[in-house]
């Protein structure tokens, strides 16, 4: 039982990190950024490129090097997110919602197959791995490295929450989420804030990508597809647009998968997890913590 909860929380924290970017972008410009999972993949690959370039240095001091790589990757993936928004989404800001959705799917394919051209179709293996011996606590097996990863995820999420609730930048984001036009009349540079939102959301996805690469070891150009869908599910379960709801949604989805596998068997896990998604959409479309949004006139 402890093991099930632990497994669920560990996977769930990855989902939560990726889901946050989804949720923030949706909260602010009502765009379902289907290319978001591919930013996670970009993060994994840019971390891979840096680590490979470092070569021997990296193996000597695993953790500090990985943390440095994590920061570098967050910056580069964040910038990629900004470019994505500038190129693919900003020109369509006034267009119907459907055009944006289709562009997002197109952007997703462009990133995936662009990476395939750059890095090749073969899976790559991280040169530095977080491999530790498992220890048993309360009947659950886990490694110290898993604790560190969860720690990093929690720090990132708490930091994001502080940023959104306590700073001027966060206030500007929330203002735009409520009403972009009035915000711009009040002197907020809407485009700049949206750019920064993409930067933060993409950086979080990139961080999750590096962490997954360093922990699981295997990366490939399609790795973002499935987790993108899962993150979307997590965001919907928690309440899309709501930061703490999204984090909760990620953890809940992780637990659902873990227990679904246990109760029904491996082949039923996705049926169970996505069945719950359908249930949520019909019974409580705003998610666990989402509030009913009043229609804007």
């Amino acid at each position, binding site marked *: 039982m402890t*093991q*099930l909860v632990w*497994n*669920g929380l*560990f*996977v769930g924290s*990855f989902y939560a990190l990726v889901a946050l970017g989804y949720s923030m972008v949706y909260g602010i410009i009502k765009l379902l950024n289907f290319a978001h999972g591919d930013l996670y993949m970009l993060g994994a690959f840019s971390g891979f490129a840096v680590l490979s370039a470092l070569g021997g240095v990296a193996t000597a001091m695993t953790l500090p090097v990985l943390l440095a790589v994590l920061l570098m990757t967050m910056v580069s993936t964040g910038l990629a997110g900004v470019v994505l928004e500038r190129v693919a989404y900003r020109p369509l800001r006034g267009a119907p919602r459907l055009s944006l959705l289709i562009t997002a799917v197109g952007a997703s394919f462009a990133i995936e197959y662009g990476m*395939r051209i750059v890095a*090749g*179709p*073969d*899976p790559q*293996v991280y040169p530095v*791995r977080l*491999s530790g011996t*498992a220890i*048993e606590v309360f009947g659950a*097996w886990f*490694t110290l490295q898993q604790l560190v990863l969860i720690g990093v995820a929690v720090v990132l999420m708490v930091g994001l929450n502080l940023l959104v609730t306590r700073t001027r930048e966060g206030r500007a984001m929330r203002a735009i989420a409520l009403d972009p036009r009035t915000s711009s009349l009040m002197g907020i540079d809407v485009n700049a804030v949206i750019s920064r939102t993409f930067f933060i959301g993409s950086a979080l996805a990139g961080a999750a990508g590096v962490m*997954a690469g360093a922990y*699981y*070891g*295997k990366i*490939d150009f*399609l*790795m973002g597809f*499935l987790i993108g869908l899962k993150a979307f599910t997590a965001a919907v379960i928690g309440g899309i647009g709501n930061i703490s709801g999204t984090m909760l949604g990620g953890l809940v989805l992780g637990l659902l*998968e*873990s227990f*679904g*596998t*246990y109760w029904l*068997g*491996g*082949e039923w*896990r*996705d049926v169970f997890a996505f069945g719950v998604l359908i249930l949520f959409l019909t019974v409580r479309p705003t998610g666990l913590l989402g509030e009913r949004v009043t229609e804007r006139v």
Partner: protein
Amino acid sequence: MRKTHILSLAATAMMLAGCGQGLLGNGGGAQDEAKGPIRLGMLVPQSGSEAAIGPYMTNAAQLAIDEINAKGGVLGRQLQLKAADDACDAQTAVAAANKVVTEGVEVSIGGYCSGATLPTLPVFGKANIPMIIPAANSQELVDQKLKHVFLINGTGTQQAEAASKWIAKQGATRVALMHDNTSYSKDIAVRTQPMLGDKAVITEAVTPKESDYSANIHNVLQKKPDFVYWTGYFQEGGLIIRQLRQAGFKGSIMVGDGSVSAKLGEIAGPEVDGVFATMTPIPDTLPDAKGWIDSYTKKFGSAPGPYSNQAYDAVRLAAEAITKAGSTDGAKVISALEGINGFAMFSGPLKFTPEHTLSAGGFQILVWKDGKFALQDALS
């Protein structure tokens, strides 16, 4: 224009062959058929999850073709390889099959992923093109008893037999079977299970292409197995081996032939040491393949890998059958293939069963040692 030309020629040739077989004899009609190269079609994954395998197979096929061409080709014609990417995906595979058929291939020598090869059977069947399938080995491929389908890799049943034999030899009492729900992988798992009887404690399906299998592994470890047999491909296999060990599993792990790849060790890390595999002979375990490995390495700058030898043999077998048939006509090549007895291949002398499978699977047990798979037990 050129295509219609060839088509009409082929049609004329078929009519001639149909009406006047006795009069024209075997050699004459076929010699006049066409002077262009004999095209061999090969669908293998060159992208997607199994992309690592593609080059091993196409390179080996090219090696065989170059060797045969250097000796003057087949029926006085040169051989030519037409490789296409099936991405280990059913839809891509059907499109690729249609592509090579319109390119005018005479024999198909490809097929790695069973799930992707299965839907291409009718495409080649309709075009009357014999298929020598080097690697894909799900029982479903031959269950339909199609005349044009020949497997030169052991089948799922034969692999399951080898697996259960080895499991019994190891004295394992609680065996967990894990598969990825694809046609090939599930086939081996569900055939192994009854052979083990009540020693099989759980059959667990995982979702391919994910990173975290901890939930599945938890299910497996709940049953306290002392032996885990993974029947899927190497990407998930590597992750599962690593995660099993990290979850504290101390028993033996064995993988199916789809996981036999150098990448398995890279992905699994040091945890891969001592992992067993059920596999047909690979270049490293073949006693008399030294010269062959050298010429392959010299030509392509890298060593041959899994299914290189089967792909090489598929070309040689196709050439042999066409020579015996004296023509590239589908029906004649098929009966030539059925008549082959004792053709020397890496896996031993070849003779097809009435189901068009190998009369002996030739599965061996490999073990991962010193950075690669080595022979553990030939099971003979």
